[in-house]
């Protein structure tokens, strides 16, 4: 798998004016006029127009503007046929987000009412420039990118999803980590009134949901803080308004609806590791050679599939991102650090 990570100075495919835009002079002019007026909303083509059957989101103006101006297709899979983008309906209707229930369709049913505006994120711990930041202030200084990643769930299914967001590295750099910072810890919102899963007395998860990365993993250029997908803002069930996407790790590492990012000296304990340390580790790198105690990780079902074609693919080391990330784990025993 080759994923080109271009130098910032390189021209990208997305810098080339798409033919449709070049040809549609009227819309282009409209777009320019909108930009000129500083109100790009009316004339600009919505990024979601790239995908069929995507309902419009209801993003605030600043986010709509950033999403629209995103560098489209900044990272794409090299085999678009195997890694065809999942329909929006599936990506937004089949989710693990236990705050809203354990069924795959529970989040889509129950996350509707989640209030994501206003939203703020606390950045604390080993940083010089911490504090509570409004989402807009956190994300606006960064260039948005669209990145099409494979998402491999620890349950042995996967989907290909076009995310929109910013590099986590950007946000961490602006927070100015101290020399002691070695790990990053993330926390999801706790609000039992809005999140029915947090009201379940049989849940094994000790809320808030916590995830963590080593600082070098967090600073890796592939690590994304997503605010959108399919050209629009994130649906609530996908972790609105701000979620992590770490494409070479199992999906549970990609924590949703983040309210706190802490730089730490010590390695944090993530929620799944706390529940079942023999089944889920801190690293959770996609690895076909290290099985989950209850099932094999050698293959995955690429979704959507159909009744008589489970669409089983061989799972790739680091989910196919080995060229980019393998060096992070050089010399480590990945059976031990699973």
């Amino acid at each position, binding site marked *: 798998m080759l994923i080109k990570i271009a130098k910032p100075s390189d021209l990208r495919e997305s810098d080339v004016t798409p033919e449709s835009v070049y040809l549609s002079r009227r819309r282009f002019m409209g777009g320019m006029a909108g930009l000129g007026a500083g109100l790009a909303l009316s004339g600009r083509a919505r990024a979601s127009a790239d995908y069929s059957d995507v309902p419009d989101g209801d993003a605030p103006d600043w986010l709509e503007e950033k999403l629209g101006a995103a560098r489209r297709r900044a990272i794409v899979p090299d085999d678009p046929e195997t890694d065809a983008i*999942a*329909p929006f309906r*599936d990506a937004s*209707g*089949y989710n693990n987000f*236990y705050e809203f229930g*354990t069924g*795959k*369709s529970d989040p889509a049913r129950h996350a509707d009412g989640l209030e994501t505006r206003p939203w703020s994120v606390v950045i604390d711990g080993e940083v010089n420039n911490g504090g509570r930041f409004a989402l807009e202030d956190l994300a606006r200084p960064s260039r948005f990118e669209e990145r099409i990643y494979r998402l491999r769930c620890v*349950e042995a*299914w996967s*989907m290909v999803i076009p995310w929109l967001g910013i590099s986590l590295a950007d946000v961490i750099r602006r927070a100015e980590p101290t020399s002691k910072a070695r790990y990053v810890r993330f926390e999801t919102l706790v609000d039992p009134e809005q999140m029915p*899963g947090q009201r*379940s*007395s*049989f*849940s*094994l*998860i000790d809320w808030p949901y916590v995830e963590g990365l080593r600082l070098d993993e967090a600073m890796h250029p592939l690590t994304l803080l997503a605010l959108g997908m399919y050209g629009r803002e994130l649906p609530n069930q996908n972790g609105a308004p701000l979620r992590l996407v770490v494409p070479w790790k199992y999906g549970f590492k990609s924590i949703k609806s983040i309210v706190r990012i802490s730089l730490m000296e010590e390695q944090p304990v993530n929620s799944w590791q706390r*529940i079942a340390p023999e089944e889920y580790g801190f690293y959770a790198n996609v690895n076909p050679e290290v*099985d989950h105690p*209850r*099932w*094999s990780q050698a293959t995955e*079902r690429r*979704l*959507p*599939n*159909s*009744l*008589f*074609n*489970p669409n*089983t693919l061989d799972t790739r080391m680091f989910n196919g991102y080995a060229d980019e990330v393998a060096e992070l784990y050089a010399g480590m025993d990945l059976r031990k650090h699973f």
Partner: protein
Amino acid sequence: MAAQRKWQLWRVGVFLAALAPLLLWSWQVASNTAGPEPGRYLLLNIGLGGLWMLLLTLSLTPLTKLTRWKGFALIRRQLGLWTLAYACLHVLSYALFILGLDWAMLGSELIERPYILVGLLALIGLVALGATSNRWSMRKLGKRWKPLHKLAYPILGLILLHFFWGVRADLGEWTLYATVSALIMATRLPPVARSLPRVRQRLTGV
């Protein structure tokens, strides 16, 4: 004659009600509203449906004792066979939609997922009960028929274990089924079983 017709209608009604979920799920798959993993959708729903059937079957005896209504006893064999049918369809869904008939994968699956073996044991038990559910077997087995069919109890245990093993993070649903199972089984404890007719008398005054 009219009474006979009434019981026949009752049996047909139960048959249709037990069939309905299968038709509903099939229709959802056919109309593309069963989500991105239709095979798994069928697998899980049919599996849970089978547990429902077994729990319903096992609740008929205590219900009969409680109400003396003849209708419950009349559908016991039918619901028992529905349990078997759901279990077979559950395994068939697994073989067709999850394994994709890749039998080489089955070997590794059985080692990786011990709960599949537990489910298989339960299925073998259900087949044994289904095969001996006819009158001929009842006559042939005589006194041994009843103890044989008490295998339904350990089968329920195996199914709950099979279910429990697959749970990832929230035991709520499983706990609900386990509690209902425990209640149904508790009605078979001799002191409770003896008191059921008395409860009926107190409730109805008959």
